[in-house]
């Protein structure tokens, strides 16, 4: 019981060592390798999940950034369009005013010319009528120069009394 049997001890040691090698090679070694591979796989999955999460967060941030950029750009373009619209409106108004002024000026010019033409015609007719009236009154013809001088004087008097002249 208390004594050591060295032969028995040696066989026990050999039994232990041989069993250790066989059991480790056949069972525990593959099992521990399997456990390590599983741990590594789980760690890999967790890392991939973490990476995926970070990528999604980055994509979300990028999405929000682009969205805000687009919103800013849209606002800018709306402002620019409004400004361009206002500028075009002003330009159109200016051009319309200029056109209106041009038309008005032309109309006034035409009117002036027409009035002058009419006045000239009127003057001519008046002259003829007056001469005819004078000829009838006098019953005789006047000297051409006298007729002309009388006519101009008459017209001159007539212009003085013409309203708006």
């Amino acid at each position: 019981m208390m004594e050591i049997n060295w032969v028995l001890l040696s066989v026990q040691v050999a039994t232990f060592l041989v069993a250790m090698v066989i059991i480790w090679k056949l069972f525990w070694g593959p099992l521990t390798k399997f456990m390590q591979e599983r741990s590594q796989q789980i760690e890999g999955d967790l890392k991939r999940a973490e990476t995926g999460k970070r990528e999604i967060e980055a994509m979300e941030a990028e999405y929000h950034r682009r969205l805000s950029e687009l919103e800013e750009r849209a606002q800018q373009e709306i402002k620019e369009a409004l400004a361009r619209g206002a500028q075009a409106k002003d330009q159109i108004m200016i051009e319309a005013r200029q056109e209106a002024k041009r038309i008005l000026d032309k109309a006034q010019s035409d009117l002036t010319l027409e009035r002058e033409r009419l006045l000239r015609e009127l003057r001519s007719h008046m002259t003829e009528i007056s001469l005819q009236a004078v000829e009838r009154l006098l019953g005789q013809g006047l000297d051409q120069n006298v007729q002309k001088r009388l006519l101009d004087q008459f017209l001159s008097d007539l212009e003085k009394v013409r309203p708006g002249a």
Partner: protein
Amino acid sequence: MSAIPEGIEYHLPIDLSLIMSWIAVGIIFLISWLGVRRMAKVPKGMQNFLEWILGIIMQFADDMVGPTAPQYYPLFCMLFFFILVSNLMGLVPGLVSSTSRLSTTAGLALIVFFATHFFGIREKGLWNYVKRWFGNVPTWLKPFMFVIELMSELARPLSLSFRLFGNILAKEILLGVLALLVVIFLPSGNIIQECLSVVPIVLRPLIILLGLLVSVIQAFVFMILAMVYIGGAVSHEAH
């Protein structure tokens, strides 16, 4: 004749403790085979149990030995399983713990002793390994330190083997004595002795429970001490 009263005389040509060691190895073989025959990523049953135990042992080894621990996993795992199964076998009537024999426990302690120094020398080299026994003391104290360290190293296998042997033998003797008391008292015809036989009948299951606890603790202590010794030998940290 067996020194343990409960022990059965098998009259075998081979020492009983050796046969019990072989049975223990067979049980470990069977448990391991059941654990790994259908390995699944989600472990169940015996695989789960085996992974749990091996995981604990490897974690302790990593903590105590350091990065080189994986190469010592087989020794630590086998020490724990062999001692645990051997210890528990003593609780089964008709079987004997091989660890209740000094030859067995001394063999295990010598394995740890030689493994410690072999791995230590392999890791550090002979001179660096021996140098640590002289300690960081003045030169004139170094020889004394060497003697003290040498005695400490030699005491380790003694303490390892006698601790395990004493605990397991005590448990077996206690169980045997209680069984013997029942056998003696119960059929004695003496009313007092018959009444007294109740005591070992009640005590024996409790001692078996205690034996269960002792078996696990002793296996654990032996393995942890082996880790401490080997970890100390292969570690490059200052002592």
